[in-house]
């Protein structure tokens, strides 16, 4: 066994896991605050990547500005989706809301294909390209930097939820919505906030993912693995999303390299199956959550 190679493969897996974790946090944020299972998270991510292409390549803006605008665009998208498609369904059967998010994902794919066509695109070069070595192990620079950035963004968000008062209000609402209303928390505003922040995180993940492997109108399938991640971690657990994201990224990478690409999914879904059988509420989730 070549340990150095395994180590390199593992690092690559962690890189991918960082993006799962980042998108998983976006998913969990929406779920915790609004109890919506948002299957459009992968497409929100895709829109982020295309917005970056639009601002950075299409309009040829400076890349830092393109990143900021794409992130804000992602936040706006989250906000608008919640207000127009999700809010009117408040109090409806969760399954209908879930179905609506599936519909939204098709709409987003359609919009992207209308504006940018269905052809795959590459993103303007964003991440540094100097090779990175950790000890003797080589890490692809894009993977390394996307992991570092994802980890940094996640850290900032965790601090925000801990110390910013709006973040505390968001957690309060997630914990008991009725009490939040009675205590004067503007709950609908919290919903908007959660969706906007999740849109921003997903757009960030989309830019990073696009920087690594390019953008295409089918990159939203990334969201399926994210769904596996959050089910394994627990739909309402940020910590679960982080750990399961990294774990599944690692397993995929190792299985893909040693057994062949077609085994990636097999392992991911086996983990999903085992977790569903043994701990259906996820590794870190709250027990009484209903499953679909």
């Amino acid at each position, binding site marked *: 066994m070549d340990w150095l190679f395994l180590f390199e493969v593992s690092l690559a897996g962690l890189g991918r896991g960082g993006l799962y974790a980042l998108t998983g946090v976006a998913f969990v944020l929406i779920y915790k605050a609004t109890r919506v299972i948002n299957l459009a998270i992968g497409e929100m991510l895709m829109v982020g990547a295309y917005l970056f292409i639009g601002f950075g390549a299409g309009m040829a803006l400076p890349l830092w500005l393109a990143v900021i605008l794409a992130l804000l665009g992602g936040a706006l998208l989250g906000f608008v989706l919640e207000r127009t498609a999700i809010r009117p369904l408040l109090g409806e059967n969760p399954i209908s809301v879930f179905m609506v998010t599936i519909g939204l994902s098709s709409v987003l794919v359609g919009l992207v294909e209308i504006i940018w066509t269905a052809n795959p695109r590459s993103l303007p070069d964003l991440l540094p390209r100097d090779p990175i070595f950790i000890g003797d192990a080589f890490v692809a620079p894009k993977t390394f930097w996307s992991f570092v950035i994802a980890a940094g963004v996640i850290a900032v968000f965790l601090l925000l939820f801990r110390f910013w*008062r709006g973040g505390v209000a968001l957690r*309060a609402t997630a*914990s008991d919505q009725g*009490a*939040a209303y009675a*205590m*004067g*928390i503007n709950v609908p505003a919290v919903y908007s906030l959660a969706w906007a922040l999740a849109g921003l995180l997903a757009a960030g993940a989309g830019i990073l993912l696009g920087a690594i492997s390019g953008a295409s109108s089918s990159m939203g399938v990334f969201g399926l693995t994210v769904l596996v991640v959050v089910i394994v971690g627990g739909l309402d657990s940020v910590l679960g999303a982080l750990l399961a994201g990294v774990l599944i990224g690692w397993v995929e990478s190792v299985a893909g390299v040693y057994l062949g690409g077609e085994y990636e999914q097999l392992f991911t879904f086996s983990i999903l199956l085992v977790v569903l059988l043994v701990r259906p509420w996820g590794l870190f989730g709250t027990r009484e959550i209903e499953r679909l």
Partner: protein
Amino acid sequence: MTADRHILEVSNIEVVYNHTVQVLRGLSLQVPEGGIVALLGSNGAGKSTTLKAVSNVLFLENGDLTAGAIRFDGAPVAGRPPHHLVRDGLCHVMEGRRVFEDLTVEENLIAAGYAASGGDDGGGSGFELVYEYFPRLFERRRAQAGYLSGGEQQMLAIGRALLGRPRLMLLDEPSLGLSPVLVEDIFTIIARINREQGVAMLLVEQNANVALALASYGYIMESGRVVIDGTPDKLMADDDVREFYLGAAGAGGARSYREVKHYKRRKRWLS
């Protein structure tokens, strides 16, 4: 009562859940500015529903106010979202305490302060007041609220409401599940808050003894309407009230015998 200004006026309200179950049937009550009013009644009478109607959170349970009017501080409550009412000084401490269990004590207060101020109070103001009334909360401020004792959670629920500098507090069964000693402690503090902060209170209780000891006026409701109201003296002098709500204190005799009679009297009284 009539001479005082009323901070809360509930007139003839009817509430229906799920468009089918009528729970309140023409209920009226008033709370004078700065006063304590007790709303008593057995389980299922509609006490919590009354408070939810006042704080405008019925929609959360698919409940509708189908008739009547509620005025807080002279203005109708209808159409005002709950967080506006809180900012205008109406705080609802819900049944079962409902603390944010995943948050620490202090974070519960932070969320409450943020909510009550609409986010612009600078943070942390008013905590001293809460900790002054509930020193125990200060000791436990870093503890997760879910791990507090029932009494501490009730303190937190009241403290949270206090942060909004309310003019009217709706308290839903603060004595629920607490030991008699704790009940006495909590009610002593409730009385102090009322006296020192001038907060009017609508106090819902099944424990009529403690509630009437504090209140200046009381309503007793059954099946969605008020069946008798008056000063605590009047209520405590009433045979039915003594028997049904004040426990063995009023009526003597063996328990089993009383229960038979209880059922008959109750039926007569309700019809």
